[in-house]
């Protein structure tokens, strides 16, 4: 379980629920906004939302686990996303992904122990001409080669 949330975060989550009139039908919108605020959806946040909406926690958890977009693990300071769209894939993005996994020692959906990096896949960022593409935060890296991976990780490690 994640560490206790601070009061201000609890208040923020409650305010998001209030903004949507605590309607159970707004659950997905509420989860979107909560994840946008916090970066992830820990158990405590799901429990707060369930209570505010007057629905069982398992309903919230069911939705969170159903949609790949929602995550229960906090993202790293520098979230890395590898494009797995068709163009990037045929240009070898899977090998790039494997290299990131090896370099960082984590799997897709995980975060490094120091909280610096997290690894995800995404589908097409609209930069197919640069394939294979990876994003770190909102910065795009194109024409990637295996040797670029260590360099990128090093560049952000120092940040």
């Amino acid at each position, binding site marked *: 379980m994640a560490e206790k949330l601070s009061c201000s975060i609890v208040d923020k989550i409650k305010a998001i629920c209030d903004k949507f009139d605590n309607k159970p039908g707004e659950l997905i919108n509420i989860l979107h906004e909560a994840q946008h605020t916090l970066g992830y959806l820990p158990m405590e946040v*799901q*429990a707060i939302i369930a209570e505010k909406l007057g629905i*069982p*926690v*398992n*309903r919230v958890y069911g939705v969170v*686990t*159903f949609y790949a977009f929602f995550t229960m693990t906090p993202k790293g300071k520098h979230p890395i996303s590898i494009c797995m769209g068709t163009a990037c894939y045929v240009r070898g993005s899977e090998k790039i992904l494997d290299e990131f996994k090896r370099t960082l020692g984590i799997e897709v959906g995980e975060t490094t122990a120091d909280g610096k990096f997290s690894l995800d896949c995404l589908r097409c960022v609209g930069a197919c001409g640069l394939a294979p593409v990876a994003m770190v935060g909102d910065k795009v890296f194109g024409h990637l080669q295996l040797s670029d991976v260590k360099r990128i990780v090093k560049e952000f490690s120092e940040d």
Partner: protein
Amino acid sequence: MEHKNISLIIDNHKVVVPEDTTILDAAKSIGINIPTLCHMHLKGTCADNHPASCRVCVVEVKGRRNLAPACSTKCADGMEVKTSSIRVIRARKTVIELMLSDHPNECLSCPKSGKCELQAVTQHLSINETPFSGELSLRKKEMTASIVRNMDKCIYCRRCETMCNVYQSVGALGAVGRGFNTTIAPTFDRMLKDTDCTYCGQCVAVCPVGALTERTYTDQLIDDLENPDKVVIVQVAPAVRVALGEEFGNAPGTIVTGKLVSALKDIGFDYVFDTDFSADATIMEEGSELLDRLSKFLNGDKSVPIPLMTSCCPAWVNFYEHNFPDLLHIPSTARSPQQMFGAIAKNYWAEKMQISRDKLVVVSVMPCVAKKFECQRPEFATNKNPDVDYSITTRELATLIRRANINFDALPKMEFDNPLGESSGAAAIFGSTGGVLEAALRTAYELYTKKPLPKIDFEDVRGMDSVRSATIDLNGFALNVAIAYGLGNARKLMEEIRAGKCKYHVIEIMACPGGCIGGGGQPLHHGDFEIIKARQKAIYEEDRNMPIRKSHENSSIIKMYEEFFGKPLSQKAHELLHTHYSDKTIKY
């Protein structure tokens, strides 16, 4: 609003049904049973599951391109339906074959074998091989004191989810994940024991396959029965005797009390006693508690907790300990009849018989799976020796009778042993919704007014509506009572109490549909609420046939108070017959 009638043709039969009827129900009304694995509706309750997810009930509708799921397709005027055309049968077969593709083939040793709905449909469709063999779904297994979860066998019908969330409002089980990895699991993939699960067992009662079953204690029981150093005694709950017969081909609502006693003697119990005896004791304690609270209340003491709520149902006890820690002073402190029996047997009776506690094994036969958890609560043990050693369900008893090669139909009728076998009609009705309250009223009325009841039957509190209320005249005082079954209904009443808006003085709560007669440990009803209604009818018949119908007139109870407890609510009674509750809120 009046429903318009419409007519349609099902399998060449004309059928007239009210508008809004599903094809499934319309077919049933003319005796055509369309197979289904997910659909379940206990009519008259909110236990209504129709996700149309199993696709077994598909039928052919003339003019419609694809097959229609009968459970969720409404009839239309002039519709022509075929429930078993070649196309339908082929589709059903494929659906089942796909279900079997990741289903563990453990039918020979599966606890649900013979009662499994998937097995029944597979046989019905003459599926003799499994053409698709896919990856197996491997899930976490769990064994709690009451319930065993083996979700490898789950077919995602969502019935358990409906019972847990909609009917009980507990929310311990729900769908998690997506696609092939979907599973029905507790929140955050915890173990059931770390959730708000009340062990009501309604998930077990409706599971079509062997994914959710009760934890069985029959092997332990057989070991104890074999052990010459042990004295093994048994108590049987009121709802068991009106349901056990179903396991042996008797019609629902057949009363088999006498045969049940015979069977238990044949199995080898040293004494066969009756939970009805301790139900009478429960009324003595709970009825006195009610009068005590009421008289203080009427004398102007506004701090006394009103309403008094019954505390016999172990799932209900778990529910308020988990969800209403601020209202723990509201329910009666009286232990349930199962636990009163255990305490009486291991103290009063054991002392009388000079049997030491460690040699005495107390077993209960219950319509319930939560009772298995209840008897393991640490507060009901002395030096780790529990008052009730373990509890088996009505279904487990039937298994045991079959295993012992007993011809149930041919058994003679026998009487319970005494003194813990004498009981009143008031105790008999504990098995039905409204029964505990009526039993308490019979005693409380006479103790309060000091006059005999003009009419023993309190018809106003009977019935099968899931929330009922009545006003009883107690010497000019209007006593407002309410009865509810289903923890979802209980939650609403508790929220009214919390908000200070409750007008009732006494409330009876039972978790299961219709009370204990619809318990999680009873013979499976397969969604037919009429079976539970037949059991209820039998319960009131059992009551009418009793020579004594009020708990305070049970001579063995009177004698026990004289010899041992003194009077209801005495210090000794508090020690052995009452309990306390604690905050068991789950933290996330």
